[in-house]
């Protein structure tokens, strides 16, 4: 009988310190995230600490808890997967250094993982992949369409040319004086607002799968600015609904077009903005009359976590890919 494969995943690319253990790339055994956003809210601040200091303080605790929850020990672990990029170099280095130290001390194979590959593989914790597949990655820092024809190979067919979807949400939230992170607040307001303002949709050149949200951002700014000058009061809910409708329509339609063009067998959604209810509803509606199955992960797998890194690392491990102890954090790591 083939032995089960247990991969330890470590993720520290941005705000979250996370460690997880995943079995055979498909089953979460433990998944611990020390949410720095939460801890910061407690102190009344709106700024998540990006500082590596916070990762340093939490990494060993999170690691211990991941083992404790899994009821496993080091003998059970086949390899260590860690996010090597992209992200903040200081934050990434904590994860990478931890992983290297553990790999050396415990004599385990080390596997560097691309953060976006992780977001994609979060979906494999729900269902097996069917190739070719199309992944829509929408998060604070990314808005990308990635085509996969086989495991571990990624072809980026579209990306944002300015703001990521999550950034657009946060910036509009900022203008509406909503707290950080703004995405969930916009989503909440949009649910009760009406799409009364016809904000622009950035389709870009015909056939392009790239995205652009800065024109929309400017349109929202102008709308708010002009209303202020005329001393009109704008309904926040309606602005949120109108803004969100523009973002969602472009994301949904481009994803649908790409799915058709590349005749994919599966569409998966990943990243923090995949938690947006409006986006989920619209995507589900768009794909409901097609034969293409749509996968949207539960909230805890949309945001940054280490189970997704372990899941992506499992494929690399099975494909024989290894990193050596010279593995370094790469803030601008390309997805291949």
């Amino acid at each position, binding site marked *: 009988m083939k032995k089960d494969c247990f991969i330890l995943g470590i993720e520290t690319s941005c705000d979250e310190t996370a460690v997880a253990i995943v079995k055979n790339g498909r089953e979460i055994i433990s998944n611990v995230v020390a949410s720095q956003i939460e801890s910061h809210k407690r102190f009344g601040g709106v700024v*998540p*600490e990006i500082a590596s200091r916070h990762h340093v303080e939490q990494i060993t605790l999170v690691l211990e808890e991941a083992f404790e929850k899994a009821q496993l020990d080091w003998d059970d672990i086949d390899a260590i997967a860690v996010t090597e990029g992209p992200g903040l170099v200081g934050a990434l280095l904590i994860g990478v250094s931890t992983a290297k130290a553990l790999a050396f001390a415990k004599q385990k194979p080390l596997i560097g993982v691309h953060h976006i590959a992780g977001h994609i593989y979060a979906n494999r914790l729900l269902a097996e992949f069917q190739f070719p597949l199309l992944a829509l990655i929408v998060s*604070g*820092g990314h808005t990308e369409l990635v085509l996969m024809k086989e495991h571990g190979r990624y072809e980026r067919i579209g990306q944002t040319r300015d703001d990521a979807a999550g*950034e657009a949400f946060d910036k509009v939230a900022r203008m509406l004086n909503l707290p950080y992170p703004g995405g969930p607040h916009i989503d909440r307001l949009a649910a009760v607002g009406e799409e009364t303002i016809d904000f622009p949709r950035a389709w870009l050149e015909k056939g392009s799968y790239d995205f652009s949200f800065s024109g929309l951002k400017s349109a929202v700014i102008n709308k708010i600015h002009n209303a202020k000058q005329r001393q009109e009061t704008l309904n926040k809910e309606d602005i949120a609904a109108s803004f969100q409708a523009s973002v969602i329509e472009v994301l949904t339609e481009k994803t649908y077009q790409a799915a058709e063009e590349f005749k994919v067998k599966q569409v998966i959604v990943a990243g923090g903005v995949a938690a947006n209810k409006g986006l989920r509803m619209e995507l589900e509606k768009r794909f409901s009359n097609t034969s293409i199955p749509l996968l949207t992960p539960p909230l805890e797998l949309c945001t940054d976590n280490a189970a997704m890194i372990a899941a992506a690392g499992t494929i690399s491990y099975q494909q024989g890919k290894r990193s050596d102890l010279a593995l370094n954090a790469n*803030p601008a790591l390309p997805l291949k």
Partner: protein
Amino acid sequence: MVTFKKKTNNETETKEIAARLASMLNRGDVITLEGDLGAGKTTFTKGIAKGLGIKEIISSPTFTIIKEYMGGKLPLYHMDVYRLEGSDEDIGFDEYFYGDGITIVEWAHFIEDYLPKQLLTITFLYAKDGGRILSFKASGKHYEAIVDQLSRNL
């Protein structure tokens, strides 16, 4: 201190000025960009990148705080420190400011304590007709010379 103002009517003009400025920059130069949301800070950075011969898409660094671009004549470090408001965290600024590339910092006043004394600050204001007014403020001989040269060439 040397100051200089220039009005631009659209994104293309903003990028052209940025590209021209890029050709005058050296390793270790730091430029701070101030202005409201949508005022053109990232657009300006796109122009700098173009001037440095960077082919990659320059997207907003708001979420990630720092984005690095290595594909040009000099490395370009693009920061947006808005999310660091009220924080006293040093996320390794010196390695960028005194490093081997050009650093652009959006919302730099949030990290005032970490900024070098000599730098070039560009403030973006909305003009009444929808254009933008770019105000250049140079501190230190090196940046004063750059702004002086730029103002003569525009």
